[in-house]
């Protein structure tokens, strides 16, 4: 399942979650504000410190990159 690394106050995280919801795609949310090990996992996977980070089967998207998300999720 796709993972979305988020913080509660991040607008682009909300947009990313909405994008998944709108297309009926399940995801697991990891709130890095609460979960330090999730934060470290996110930093390790993405090599950077910004949210959101989205992990789709090991493919890492940094930020709410809608075109890339659509491509990886096969949404037209």
């Amino acid at each position: 399942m796709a993972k979305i690394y988020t913080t509660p106050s991040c607008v682009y995280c909300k947009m990313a979650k909405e994008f998944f919801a709108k297309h009926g795609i399940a995801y697991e949310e990891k709130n890095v504000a609460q979960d330090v090990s999730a934060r470290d996992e996110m930093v390790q996977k993405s090599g950077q410190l910004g949210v959101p980070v989205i992990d789709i089967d090991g493919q890492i998207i940094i930020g709410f990159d809608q075109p890339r998300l659509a491509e990886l999720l096969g949404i037209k």
Partner: protein
Amino acid sequence: MYDVIIIGGGPAASAAAVYVARKKLKTVVITESFGGQSQVSDDIQNWIGEKSISGFDLAKKLEEHVRSFSDVVEVKMPERVLGVRSIKCNEATHVCDFEVKTEEGNIYEGKSMILAAGARRRKLGVPGEDAFNGKGVAYCSTCDAPVFAGKEVAVVGGGNAGLEAVVDLFPYAKKIYLLARGDALKGDPITQEKIKNHPQVEIIYNAETQEILGDKFVNGVRYKDVKTGEEKIIAVGGVFVEIGSVPNSEMAKDLVELDNYGQIKIDSKHASTSHPGVFAAGDITDDPYKQNNISAGDGVKAALAAYGYLQKRAKQSPAAEK
């Protein structure tokens, strides 16, 4: 050929779009996104009519309002404008058509334009800033503060944005260095109070940031004390850059007059620029107050002025309007 081309999707552009739509002008709105700069804000408390609204909800409302006029207003999003210019000018009447080019490779032509592309965060322009962007260098404290839990960080900028970043970091960062260029802070007194005697905060005055240091991630920042000329390094895991904004006016620099800060000069009565038929509103202009409501109001002015211009233009050159 559109009657009006609106560039932007913030409060200025959205307000302009609503007003030209109600005048039934054939319009295209070209923007990277809706909502504008305060989209990242958790809580906007001064959007008139809303005691509290998140930037996210404001963005949605603006977009919905604009899209409700789909009979006359086309929305091109996400699309990034690279440049605008005049084409086919009538030497006698100074009436021109305009052309807008986008990164996506599209070209739009219009009889008038409203430039409302707002502003973006100012960068420090020091070594290390780009290399460590996202790797400890951050521009959105509301978004990224929690990622710096337990770390020591620096905030650059002694104005409101800098002070608010410090407040955003309170619940997370172990220690916050605030680097201010002057010998006093400039932000709101209430926020200054909050941070001045806070045990987590150390304010460093007269500090000019020189370089952001790091290896894989940021591990320090080098600054110069402008009073003594001494250079110092502090060890931090993050640097939040909060030093104001720059107008997104590059696209129009060969068409309209800009001031020394790159802001489009407007006659604030009519939102008109130095070029007839080109109007501008919001943070892209030299209007001194950069606020959502003001940008929206200026957008309305630009729309009504564009409408007036188009009516006059139709009278002057009826043949060209066919």
